[in-house]
């Protein structure tokens, strides 16, 4: 992102694609939104991926995620009560609806402007795609 400063914006939609089959993803997405209320969304977001193996095998990983909150100077009680209150359910549900409208069937899915990229891609390929799109939109007459 730093390489493309001023030229690229990333918008994140934390998804729980299939909460019935995978309830942990719903909890994690809500927890990330709740961490955002305490100003630590991105830190919590990165931590969820770094420690994925430690929490994603639990169907109800909230306890484990609350423990991790301490490492990020988050209030674990506030995080836990925020998730349990269900306040963030509407955001997660809205993102799921939006993803369905865009026919997002698997994650990760990126839209670089209108170009859909499905699945994991190495960093250099993503850089190339971003550069291509930048060249396209910045071409004279576009």
């Amino acid at each position: 992102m730093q390489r493309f400063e001023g030229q690229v914006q990333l918008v994140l939609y934390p998804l729980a694609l299939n909460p019935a089959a995978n309830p942990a993803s719903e909890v994690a997405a809500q927890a990330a939104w709740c961490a955002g209320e305490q100003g630590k969304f991105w830190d919590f977001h990165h931590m969820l991926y770094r420690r994925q193996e430690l929490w994603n095998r639990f169907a109800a990983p909230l306890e484990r995620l609350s423990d991790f909150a301490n490492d990020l100077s988050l209030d674990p009680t506030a995080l836990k009560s925020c998730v349990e209150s269900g306040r963030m359910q509407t955001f997660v549900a809205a993102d799921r609806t939006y993803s369905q409208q865009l026919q997002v069937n698997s994650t990760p899915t990126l839209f670089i402007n209108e170009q859909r990229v499905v699945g994991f891609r190495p960093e250099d390929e993503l850089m190339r795609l971003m550069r291509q799109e930048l060249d396209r939109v910045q071409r004279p007459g576009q």
Partner: protein
Amino acid sequence: MSSVQASSLLVHLRRWGHLCTLPWVAVLLRVLVGGVFVFAGFSKLLLPHAEVIEHVQQYQVLPGWLVSITATFLPWIEVGSGTALLIGFCTTPAALLIAVQLLNFSALMGLVLAAGIPIADCGCFGNLGLPETPLQVLLRDLVMLALLVPIIYRQRDALSLDAWSNAPASYEACVRRGDEEGAQVRGGRRE
């Protein structure tokens, strides 16, 4: 296998062989196999192109350039060959094209199984069908290959464009034109 079991198997095989000569069996199998391919093709066309590429890429055995070509053309080939088989248009070439596809898919699934590549959903029917593992796809494709045999080696066409175009029309033409000699031939036969 005992001789009783062997002779019982032979009887079943003969019955199947006899069934395969019945035109309505070929029609049924044509509709079934053709229908499956039309459905598979349309289900992929309903998906975003990038999703189809991702489905093909997950097999990890195809080179990059072939992934793109396969994802682009496969749905259209499925729809085209399936439709042709369904309506009985150029039935043998359509059936052979489908057989080639089935052989390719079976070989691909075999490679994936041998390499132990974990695939939860083959992506064969996009979002419209049940997720299938490579083993399930392999078995299904081998069954469909077997079902193509009576279609390719059919004795007569029925309920198909090919049948309609091959139907003998000379008698009708004679009657329509009021061909007297045709009537005389019929009269001569009675004598």
